[in-house]
């Protein structure tokens, strides 16, 4: 049995043990969906970091820096700075005024059924797209890491899918939280070790490291040797549209992170708003440290391993594991691979629980049954069943797409929907008295449609491929893109806000306005906020 496989199995055994422990503590809605609101600030902070640092950031950003240098590091910056929006604007009011989902805050003073139905649709869209991207990545990665062990892409996808369903169905939010915590600690430890090894490789002289980045050598597709300074900006984002795309990406990150359902649900797991605030700060310390270290991961891979070698040994996503192998051999390669696997598993589990919470709490209980749970435990049971459905859909779609599918756009789409549909309505419902149901529905619908529509006609899905590109790697529409940017945020976020504002202005809803003061006082003082439950 290969070493990576043994390490995977150890991680799986530990997390299943936690799931068993958590399963005895997950009776009742508050325990199942919000871990009884008893998670400590530092624990939730680590879990937020774990939920957020996906394989896209660990493997993806390291790969982009290894191939395109400095421009890849710009991703790292945006992923941290985005947390200031979470900290300053969203986390505390949400914790004070909500219960399990972001829709709780919207439903407070608006007509609950239409608002929850659309918010739930938007949540499911974000979670499912993000999950499919992670699953395709997971399948490709596991199949690659365990090459020779007979584990194929579909088997890897099914394995990841079943594990995530088990965590969520049996362990609920409590198990998911601890899976995130363990994964985040592993990821930080692995990244830290890898960074130290990179610095040690240059004799602990940072100057030498940065000098080496100044002349990264590789071969272009025509076989010509190229020497480039990877510290120089502009290797990825070139004029005319590059800079705009970069700004658009920044907008999706800065305004989208605060609308990501799997991050928002985490703030309901702590006892109060003050603890929610502390957990954001903990998350920022970890996330910031991690993303600064991508300097060593990415540039280390570029200088020590080299783009040529990475390209022929699994491609960009393998940059970090290959760096580990080059620096400390097969055991460390196995360790870093196991961390990548843990990362994917934890993130898909977090996405699954946010999707099922929204379906069970928003759609089933509040939209279909008008807020009344017909018998005790129904809401949790619906969530458990929907975890199977969500997991099944993600597994099926990921297998149909296959390991070579271009899925990076799904992550861009998830952030764009979160920023364009979710954030405008959250912010307006907290801060604008005049805001009403028509506005919320118009904002959610406009943001959702604009994001999906613009991605469909963007270069991610619309481009003319040379005949050498075959199968799932080909673009969906073989024609020049209509919208020139890969990230729709710069257009779809303003559209989401405009939709919400225009919708509001064409109608009047006195009940929404009269409840504004209540929401304002509740969200700012914590008066009447949901309490932690005793076990």
């Amino acid at each position: 049995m290969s070493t990576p496989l043994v390490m995977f199995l150890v991680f799986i055994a530990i997390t299943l043990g936690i799931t068993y422990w958590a399963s005895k503590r997950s009776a009742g809605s508050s325990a199942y969906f919000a871990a009884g609101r008893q998670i400590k600030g530092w624990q939730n902070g680590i879990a937020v970091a774990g939920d957020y640092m996906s394989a896209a950031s660990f493997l993806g950003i390291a790969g982009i820096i290894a191939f395109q240098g400095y421009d890849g590091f710009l991703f790292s910056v945006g992923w941290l700075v985005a947390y200031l929006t979470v900290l300053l604007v969203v986390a505390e009011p949400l914790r004070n005024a909500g219960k399990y989902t972001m829709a709780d805050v919207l439903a407070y003073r608006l007509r609950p059924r239409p608002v929850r139905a659309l918010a739930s649709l938007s949540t499911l869209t974000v979670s499912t797209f993000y999950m499919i991207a992670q699953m395709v990545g997971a399948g490709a990665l596991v199949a690659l890491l365990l090459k020779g062990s007979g584990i194929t892409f579909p088997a890897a996808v099914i394995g990841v899918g079943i594990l995530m369903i088990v965590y969520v169905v049996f362990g609920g939010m409590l198990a998911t939280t601890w899976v995130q915590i363990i994964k985040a600690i592993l990821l930080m430890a692995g990244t830290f070790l890898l960074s130290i090894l990179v610095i040690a490789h240059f004799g602990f002289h940072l100057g030498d490291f940065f000098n080496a980045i100044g002349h990264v050598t590789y071969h272009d597709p025509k076989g010509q040797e190229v020497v480039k300074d990877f510290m120089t900006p502009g290797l990825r984002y070139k004029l005319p549209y590059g800079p705009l795309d970069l700004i658009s990406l920044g907008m999706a990150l800065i305004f989208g992170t605060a609308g990501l359902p799997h991050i928002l649900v985490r703030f309901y797991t702590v006892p109060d708003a003050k603890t929610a605030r502390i957990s954001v700060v903990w998350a920022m310390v970890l996330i910031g440290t991690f993303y600064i270290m991508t300097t060593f991961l990415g540039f280390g891979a570029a200088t020590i391993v080299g783009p040529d070698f990475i390209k022929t040994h699994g491609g960009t996503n393998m940059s970090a594991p290959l760096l580990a192998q080059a620096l400390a051999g097969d055991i460390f390669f196995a360790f870093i691979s196991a961390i990548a696997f843990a990362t994917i598993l934890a993130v898909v589990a977090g996405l699954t629980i946010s999707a099922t919470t929204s379906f069970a709490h928003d759609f089933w209980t509040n939209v279909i049954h008008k807020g009344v749970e017909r018998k005790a435990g129904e809401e949790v049971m619906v969530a458990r069943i929907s975890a199977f459905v969500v997991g099944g859909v993600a597994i099926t779609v990921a297998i149909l797409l296959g390991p070579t599918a271009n899925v990076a756009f799904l992550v861009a789409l998830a952030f764009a929907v979160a920023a364009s549909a979710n954030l405008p309505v959250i912010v307006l419902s907290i801060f604008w008295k005049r805001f009403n149901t028509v506005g919320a529905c118009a904002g959610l619908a406009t943001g959702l449609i604009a994001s999906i529509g613009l991605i469909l006609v963007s270069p991610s899905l619309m481009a003319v491929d040379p005949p050498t590109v075959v199968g799932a790697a080909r673009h969906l529409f073989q024609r020049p893109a209509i919208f020139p940017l890969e990230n729709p945020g710069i257009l779809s976020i303003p559209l989401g806000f405009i939709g919400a504002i225009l919708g509001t202005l064409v109608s009047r809803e006195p009940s929404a306005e009269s409840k504004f003061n209540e929401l304002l006082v509740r969200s700012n003082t914590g008066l009447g906020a949901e309490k932690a439950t005793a076990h």
Partner: protein
Amino acid sequence: MPQQARVQPMPPDSTPRDTSATDWDRIAASPEFKDLMSTKKMFIIPAFVFFVVYYFALPALVGYAPQFMATKVIGNINLAYLFALSQFFMAWIIAWLYVKAAGGFDKLAQDIIAKVDKAKGGK
């Protein structure tokens, strides 16, 4: 408080401190609450505007003035990398300042809650 039975149409109305609807308007109009809101706004709005401007300066400068940002500062480390790195410290400093300021918000909020409890004849 049985949690399962509390899945009610929003807003939940069985939390211990809940007061009748008219009270919310009175609290919202009280000088203490107005003080809390203006204290919060005095920190949050400038902090938000500052970080958004500081952050978007990075993609704008790197995107539209890559030559200038490639200016070397220490060894091979250039302006672009230093500016990107400074963003991390900017985020951490604002977060730290916010936590300090939020301690003050908490005090003001607690005073408001205490006053509500007292008006209701204690908790």
